[in-house]
């Protein structure tokens, strides 16, 4: 009697033990050490608004960018509140590797061609760097012809047409909704209209997602200019620090960026030295960036 009770008890215990062990084992036997994952989508594109973000184009991918800035909102109904005029930049960016991007663009402002390289030095990850750091260098080449009238700069050689920008883009994605970026910048102008040849600046910008596919962005560049430095844009107009606010709308495949800014120029040289609008007096340009990505990665062939 005792024995049979013992028998049942033991059998029951053993059986329930093995059953439970198997249940746990099945998923446990799959556990593998989690590998380091890099934070993705700190920003939705390679541009925050006017300036660059830490994001680079993925390896063997080509980005085609169309950027527009209309005229000033306060230019009145005759000018359709700025929509009658537009400046444009077309650009191509190619990811040589996941971390190195080469780009070229052309804008109608002073017929400027810009060439640049971007390199991701550090990437924020789950078990590693707290920050993403991307280095950026660009040369903006003014190709407009020299005319001897008062509103245009006279260029005596090609060296005077080169304008270099160096940036460190430092960003952190704090949550899936909020990212912040700092941009220490140095712009060198080969031939400024009036003012210094070297313009140090620091930018701050960020994005905040208000829904799954829409984010609000802001960007501000503060330039370090001494009191005596009157930096003027071509035509002798006073230039201001660049301010921009906007929204990003991701529509699957495309990212639309719609924004308001006091700069009609869309590259570093232009918004750091030629932003002639006083944002708080209504000198605001409405604009947008659209990017489309093409993949030339044949390795991931569709073996469906």
């Amino acid at each position, binding site marked *: 009697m005792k024995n049979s009770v013992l028998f049942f008890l033991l059998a029951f215990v053993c059986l329930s033990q093995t059953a439970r*062990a*198997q249940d746990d084992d099945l*998923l446990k*036997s799959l556990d593998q050490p989690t590998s380091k994952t890099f934070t993705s989508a700190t920003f939705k594109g390679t541009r925050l608004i006017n300036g660059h973000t830490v994001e680079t184009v993925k390896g063997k991918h080509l980005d085609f960018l169309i950027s527009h800035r209309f005229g000033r909102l306060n230019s009145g109904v005759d000018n359709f509140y700025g929509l009658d005029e537009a400046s444009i930049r077309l650009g191509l960016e190619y990811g040589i590797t996941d971390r190195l991007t080469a780009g070229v663009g052309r804008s109608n402002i002073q017929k400027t061609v810009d060439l640049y390289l971007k390199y991701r030095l550090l990437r924020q990850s789950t078990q590693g760097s707290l920050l993403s750091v991307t280095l950026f260098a660009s040369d903006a080449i003014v190709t407009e012809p020299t005319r001897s009238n008062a509103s245009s700069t006279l260029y005596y050689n090609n060296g005077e047409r080169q304008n270099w920008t160096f940036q460190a883009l430092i960003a952190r994605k704090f949550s899936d909704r909020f990212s912040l970026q700092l941009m220490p910048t140095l712009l060198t102008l080969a031939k400024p209209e009036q003012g210094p040849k070297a313009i140090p600046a620091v930018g701050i910008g960020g994005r905040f997602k208000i829904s799954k596919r829409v984010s609000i962005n802001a960007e501000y560049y503060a330039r370090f200019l001494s009191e005596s430095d009157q930096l003027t844009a071509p035509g002798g107009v006073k230039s201001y620090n660049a301010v921009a606010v906007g929204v990003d709308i991701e529509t699957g495949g495309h990212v639309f960026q719609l924004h308001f800014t006091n700069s009609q120029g869309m590259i570093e040289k232009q918004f750091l030295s030629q932003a002639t609008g006083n944002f708080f007096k209504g000198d605001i340009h409405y604009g947008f960036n659209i990017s489309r990505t093409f993949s030339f990665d044949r390795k991931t062939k569709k073996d*469906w």
Partner: protein
Amino acid sequence: MKILSFLLAFALSFSAHAQLFLTQTGETRFFSKTPVEDISAVNKKVGVVLNSQTGEIVVRMAITDFNFPNKLMQEHFNENYLESEKYPYGLFRGKIQNLPDLTKPGTYDVSAPGSLDIHGVKQDRTMKGKITVQGDKITLQSDLQVALVDHKIEVPKLVFAKIAEVIDVKNQFVLQKK
């Protein structure tokens, strides 16, 4: 004392029978045809484990391991569609009903009722597929369709490339005896 030792042997024999077959490199791919461009992705790091005694099977994949030819798509897929930071894994737990003798080579049709957990939403599903036994190697093949609505995966109204409401998924898992 004799009884005790008999009991121990009896209990041990139970666990000795439970033979596990597993892989960490199973392949899952999915496909969706859109008018603009086809969307396809493959995950080659799928973990699968099968208990040959009970027929219990667990399939687990990290959503971030899906590779798309277009990396921008991959980013959108993880960030907006499957929200892989919140729901890192896709999981299937099931039990193969008509489990064949896995010691005999051959190909068998099987079905496994269980629960499919994608995007944090569990669905009761019955997986149908084929088991091919070759020595210590078992190949599982299974095709299924996943309706986005079933797992609360939202497609925005503004999307240009219309994504199919139902996604075709193909699985091929080669399991090794542990």
